[in-house]
């Protein structure tokens, strides 16, 4: 048998071009400078939640994509967008075609609150909200995002995503300068300024998961009045301390009341028990985590849940497994952690992949992309195509926005591949 030596360049497919998929491609490229590495994504645009999750006013965090651009532009990693594994290409075929398959499909679905919920109450997941404001394809037309959220909003959760939702709903249009917020979705959701936002978390303030820097950023918003509500008796901690300082410095700075302030109140240690509906409003009912008899009712026009993420229809099912398949990122670890944590995870997984080949557990020799190319060639969006869409979106940006995303999936593909697509070519 003429088998390539173990450890020689394997063919590699990565499914998902979010941070964990891209970091894995980066580490594997360092391990095997000449391997064929193909990164598939269901969408015609790369980078997963960096493009569609990370808040539109945090362009600095989105700038991590510079690194990933380089993979596709310089380091000979192929981007194969608009290819949904499981639909456009069978998982089994991928496993047959590539020596190594890395699943990095993330977790997309908002975790439900898990309490009894009156269907008349307007309840919206923070993930959908952030995706909508980020111009996720075809989402702006969904019924969930097509009606105003109202003037009183309750946000359930105390992680960074809850604060992202709060900040984006509180910022007026001009405070969103430099962002790529989808103004059409924002205007639909918020035709008039919000008046009141209550942030209700199960953790006490000491255990709240958001970063202090995220709170401090709220302190810079001139139209936001911060206050502390329920604390479940946990008041001597950095979070409450910072909230007090921010509230106090604002009181001092405030000149005349403009009447346009948004009252933002943080409640801690409140465990949701039900979402009911009364007088045309949603009502979040809670009990204190320190004292279950302390029942509270938060009335709001809509309730936004930021309780984490779980596998949706999009995620790789558990049945997708084989000896040459690895999982990485949110899909592997659960929906916890920021972009850097995916980098550490990708580094570890890449090491185990390298070890598996060194130890001869896998013998490379599968053909790679050429085996599946004819199936995806008719619709695949490659990196140069994406670049065309990218340029186009930057060109569409109005006034103070840095980009206006194309949100119609067919239009995205149309702009990307252009009308003059060259005759299909094999690799």
């Amino acid at each position: 048998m003429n088998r390539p030596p173990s450890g020689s360049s394997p063919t590699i497919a990565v499914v998902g071009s979010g941070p964990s998929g891209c970091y894995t491609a980066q580490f594997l490229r360092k391990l095997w400078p000449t391997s064929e590495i193909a990164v598939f994504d269901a969408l015609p645009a790369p980078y997963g939640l960096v493009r569609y999750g990370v808040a539109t006013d945090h362009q600095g965090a989105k700038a991590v994509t510079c690194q990933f651009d380089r993979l596709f532009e310089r380091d000979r990693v192929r981007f194969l967008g608009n290819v949904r594994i499981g639909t456009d290409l069978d998982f089994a075929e991928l496993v047959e075609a590539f020596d190594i398959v890395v699943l990095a499909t993330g977790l997309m679905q908002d975790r439900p609150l898990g309490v009894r919920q009156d269907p008349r109450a307007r309840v919206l997941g923070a993930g959908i909200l952030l995706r909508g404001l980020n111009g996720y394809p075809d989402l702006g037309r969904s019924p969930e995002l097509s009606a105003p959220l109202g003037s009183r909003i309750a946000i359930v959760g105390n992680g960074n995503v809850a604060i992202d939702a709060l900040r984006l709903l509180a910022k007026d249009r001009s405070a969103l300068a430099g962002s790529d917020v989808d103004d059409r979705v924002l205007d639909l959701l918020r035709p008039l300024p919000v008046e009141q936002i209550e942030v209700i978390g199960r953790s006490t303030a000491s255990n709240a998961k958001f970063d202090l820097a995220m709170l401090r950023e709220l302190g810079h918003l001139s139209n936001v009045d911060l206050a502390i509500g329920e604390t479940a008796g946990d008041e001597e901690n950095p979070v409450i301390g910072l909230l007090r300082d921010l509230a106090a410095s604002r009181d001092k700075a405030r000149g005349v009341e403009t009447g346009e302030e948004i009252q933002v109140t943080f409640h801690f240690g409140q465990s949701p028990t039900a979402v009911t509906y009364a007088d045309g409003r949603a009502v979040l009912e809670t009990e204190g985590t320190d004292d279950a008899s302390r029942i509270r009712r938060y009335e709001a026009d809509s309730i936004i849940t930021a309780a984490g993420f779980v596998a949706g229809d999009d995620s790789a099912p558990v049945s997708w497994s084989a000896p040459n398949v690895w999982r990485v990122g949110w899909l592997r670890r659960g929906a916890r952690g920021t972009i850097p944590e995916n980098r550490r995870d990708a580094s570890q997984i890449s090491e185990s992949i390298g070890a598996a080949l060194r130890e001869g557990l896998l013998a490379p020799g599968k053909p790679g992309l050429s085996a599946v190319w004819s199936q995806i060639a008719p619709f695949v969006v490659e990196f140069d195509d994406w670049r065309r869409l990218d340029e186009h979106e930057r060109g569409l940006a109005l006034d103070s926005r840095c980009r206006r995303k194309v949100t119609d999936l067919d239009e995205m593909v149309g702009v990307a591949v252009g009308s003059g697509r060259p005759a299909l070519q094999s690799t």
Partner: protein
Amino acid sequence: MGPIQILFGTESGNAEMVADDIADALEGRGLEHEVSAMENFEVDLLTSADFAIFITSTYGDGELPMTTAPFHDALVTAKPDLRSLRFAAFGLGDRTYDTYNNAVTVLASTLTELGATQVGETGRHDASGGESYSDTALGWLKQLLDDVALD
């Protein structure tokens, strides 16, 4: 002169990309260099180095990234004599944080306290400023090489 040591500390990988860019530029000028992650670099080796370029981002609330912190701790603990070391420093940060580029300032002042001499201005990249990492870093490097003789 020995090879220029390029040392980076990073959380999400941007500082490593900058280190690679700087290495490429030095390569282009025929300057000998070595790139290392701070986490894999023995601080004692700095006592025999002539010139080093330190690149670090800032995280958390103005803190050192997880890969810069152990290196910095080792400097503070081992107190190597760095009087023969000249160095330049480049930071990655984001101006929307109150603690803009704090980590590179902390690292540079520790190095200075240990006797090393900083040359050129500390470079700073602002992730929310819109300029690419490469443009800012290479512009800074060009200025540095114009001002300082490295060969």
